[in-house]
């Protein structure tokens, strides 16, 4: 082992049926460094982490931990915790039925008994320190995912660890939260903790990381010091090919084409959900890409869920192509040509045990009806088409979706709604957890769809991305529509100001 390294992995191999997820991967983490683990969706990042923490059992290779002479034997996450590795996994892995406080302390307290008073007080303090809007005694399941993500992070950083692993912790956080997280990470770094950081946001990598290890297709591409690796090179290392920059995406589309005087494809008047958003008006035209923006928990998702009929709708009027329709449940919306990609992939998106193929055709199938199953051959064809189109990394279309990498799962859900061929497509955080290459592909796709005359609502926590794709932004604050920005107003500053409520 090198002198100042806290963790070394040598020749790690991991095979799943039909997939070589990791092939002879080496990885070194030094004391007090933040080390980015980068790669496309399905490159094997999460797998490497899970092998390290004992969730998966490796098929080869060795792990060395500082302070232990022999190769460390880590056969369960518990072992990993014991040797000082604390982890935030990509999919939130907390127990929804327990309280917030308990989720933060379970599995890592000493002693036989749980001291509720103490853990509630400690948790309360920690939540306050990190500014997480949750109550220690609250059931975790009732918190939004962003809050759950923060709780998972709080749990991990609170542990007295040598190694902290963060697998895409920022995918559902907004900028303020991310800033908080970075501050935490830098503090820990000072204390000598080694941090492994997985993300698809390049800016974040360059903001805090010291070193980068790149994986591609389960193999190690290399380890680099951050200064030696400019972004463009990093991306091409990840993708294994040169990458055309994305700065000029928007120019490809022409927003001038939208006819704002025509009847809107979708129009809502005084739409009111039961989930706490105030009644709002909203409309979208043919070929338009619009966005909802606001802070975490401002009700962006609630708005689009109300549009789709995903939550119960209390009142309001909906017009499709000028004709009034009733949308009480998702099927009504689907029949009226609306598609909705939900933000909580695990809960609302994937049907875990079903194959990739069944997941892709699900929405189309439901729209066709109970008595008209899509033939096997046809389904294969659709699946193969979209696996290719979106470059979904899967062993086959038979593979259960839950064994795909997070980003690839997201692509499957996207494929599902594209296949449904809607005239109005709602995408709630479609690029969450998606690698940089594909992200650009998706943004291009959105604009292409708009070019073909479809309407798209695009929600993202990344304002950049919104600016790049949207021609109009609806700004929300505390469940209320507080403004609408168009054309020249679409600048970072202006948006931030509207969100914060400085003017308007």
């Amino acid at each position: 082992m090198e002198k100042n390294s806290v963790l070394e992995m040598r020749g790690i191999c991991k095979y799943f049926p039909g997939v070589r997820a990791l092939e002879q991967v080496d990885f070194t983490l030094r004391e007090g460094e933040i080390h980015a683990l980068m790669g496309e969706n399905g490159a094997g990042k999460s797998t490497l982490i899970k092998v390290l923490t004992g969730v998966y059992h490796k098929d080869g290779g060795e792990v060395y931990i500082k302070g232990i002479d022999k190769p460390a034997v880590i056969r369960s996450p518990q072992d990993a915790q014991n040797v000082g590795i604390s982890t935030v996994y990509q999919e939130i892995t907390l127990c929804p039925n327990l309280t917030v406080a308990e989720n933060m302390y379970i599995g890592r307290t000493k002693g036989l008994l749980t001291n509720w008073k103490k853990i509630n007080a400690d948790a309360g303090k920690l939540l306050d320190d990190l500014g997480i809007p949750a109550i220690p005694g609250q059931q975790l399941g009732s918190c939004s995912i962003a809050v759950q993500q923060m709780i998972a992070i709080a749990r991990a950083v609170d542990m007295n660890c040598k190694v902290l692993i963060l697998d895409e912790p920022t995918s559902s956080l907004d900028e303020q939260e991310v800033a908080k997280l970075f501050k935490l990470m830098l503090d820990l770094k000072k204390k000598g903790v080694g941090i492994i950081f997985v993300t698809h946001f390049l800016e974040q990598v360059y903001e805090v990381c010291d070193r980068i290890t790149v994986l591609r297709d389960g193999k190690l591409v290399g380890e680099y010091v951050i200064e030696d690796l400019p972004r463009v090179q990093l991306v091409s290392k990840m993708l294994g090919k040169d990458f055309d920059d994305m700065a000029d995406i928007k120019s490809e589309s022409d927003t001038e084409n939208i006819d704002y005087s025509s009847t809107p494809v979708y129009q809502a008047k005084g739409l009111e959900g039961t989930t706490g958003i105030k009644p709002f008006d909203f409309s979208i035209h043919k070929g338009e890409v619009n966005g909802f923006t606001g802070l975490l928990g401002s009700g962006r998702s609630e708005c689009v869920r109300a549009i789709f009929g995903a939550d119960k709708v209390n009142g309001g009027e909906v017009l499709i192509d000028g004709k009034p329709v009733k949308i009480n449940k998702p099927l009504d919306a689907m029949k009226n040509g609306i598609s909705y990609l939900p933000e909580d992939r695990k809960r609302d998106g994937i049907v875990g045990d079903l194959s990739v193929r069944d997941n892709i055709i699900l929405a189309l199938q439901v729209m066709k009806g109970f008595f008209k199953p899509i033939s096997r051959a046809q389904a294969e064809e659709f699946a193969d088409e979209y696996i290719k189109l979106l470059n979904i990394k899967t062993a086959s279309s038979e593979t259960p979706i839950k064994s795909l990498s997070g980003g690839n799962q997201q692509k499957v859900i996207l494929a599902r709604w594209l296949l449904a061929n809607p005239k109005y497509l709602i995408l709630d955080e479609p690029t969450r957890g998606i690698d940089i290459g594909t992200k650009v592909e998706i943004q291009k796709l959105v604009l292409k769809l708009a070019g073909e005359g479809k309407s798209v609502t695009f929600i993202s926590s990344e304002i950049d991305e919104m600016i790049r794709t949207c021609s109009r932004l609806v700004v929300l604050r505390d469940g209320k529509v507080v403004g609408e920005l168009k054309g020249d107003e679409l600048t970072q500053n202006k948006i931030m100001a509207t969100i914060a409520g400085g003017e308007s």
Partner: protein
Amino acid sequence: MSSNTVKKQTSLAGLAKSVVRKQIFIPIAALLILVLFNLIADPSFFQITLQPNSEGYNVLSGNIISIIDRASELVILAIGMTLVTSASGGQDISVGATIAIAGSVVLRVLCGSNTRPDTLQAPVIVAFIVCCLVSMLFGAFNGTLVAYFKIQPMVATLIMFTAGRSIAAWINNNELPVISDPKFAYYGNFIPGIPIPTPVFITAACLIVIALVLKFTNLRLYSQAVGINPHSSRLNGINPQMIKFITFVILGLCVAVAGFIKVSRLSTINYSVVAKDIEMDAILAVALGGNALGGGKFNMTASVIGAYVIQFLTTTLYKYDVDSAAISAYKAVVVIILVVLSAPIVREKMGEVKKKLFPAKTAKEAA
């Protein structure tokens, strides 16, 4: 009926290996073990003879025929139970009691108010239809509790489990009607001139119907999706409640057919023992078929084979004169051996042992 296709394998070993990995391997292996046991212990077990019965026409008889015949009700129930398990993630424990109701209804319609009629008071088909409707109604009751009131299936059906046999008694005013018309007995025994027991045909019909339903509707996809993730199913336009409800109604229909066969076998009914404990066997059939009792993906063929395995086991135990008292203990041991052998972990471990014994061969396979 399985949704999985067997991929073309180049080598026979590869084929064998892919079969072993499949879910359906479990019940088939169980069946094979039982067959093998009987072959070794007493090959005459498999003898089938064609003999005249007391009515004077030839019928087939032999253990194998008995098994196929006797398993009928269980197989039919297993169909419905598989669907209910898949969609609702729970099991219906009231099927035995609702079979009593179904049977009671059939007799009530056929006998009218006279408990020992010389002639049938209504055509059999009318009795059957009424029985189906009533059973579906009770299925709908269970389904409503489970789907719309979100009560866990095992407790929701505990209600009918408790009340069912009493309701059955009430339908016939506590009388035990007996039907003397031999025509009614055709459905549970033999139709004159046909050497194969009628329940076999009824079961075959049910299997064909469910195969067609699974092929020409989206029942499989919907119930699996609902069972795996009701939230995302709902966002994809499926009505999870409706699907759960429908599976219970389908199970009600299965119960009706099973109940009809049951009363026809004996032309009478005993409310407290008819189809006793059949719910446990039906659930066991689903489980032996390798289906997760927590819902989600299912393999209908495997459940059906599972049901035959149970009947095979029962008949084998009867044949080998197992002590009355101990019969359930033996059943337990056999079931445990079967499930342990088929447990993925055990198979994995055995695979590892094999790998150690024949390292060269497995390495070649991997490459």
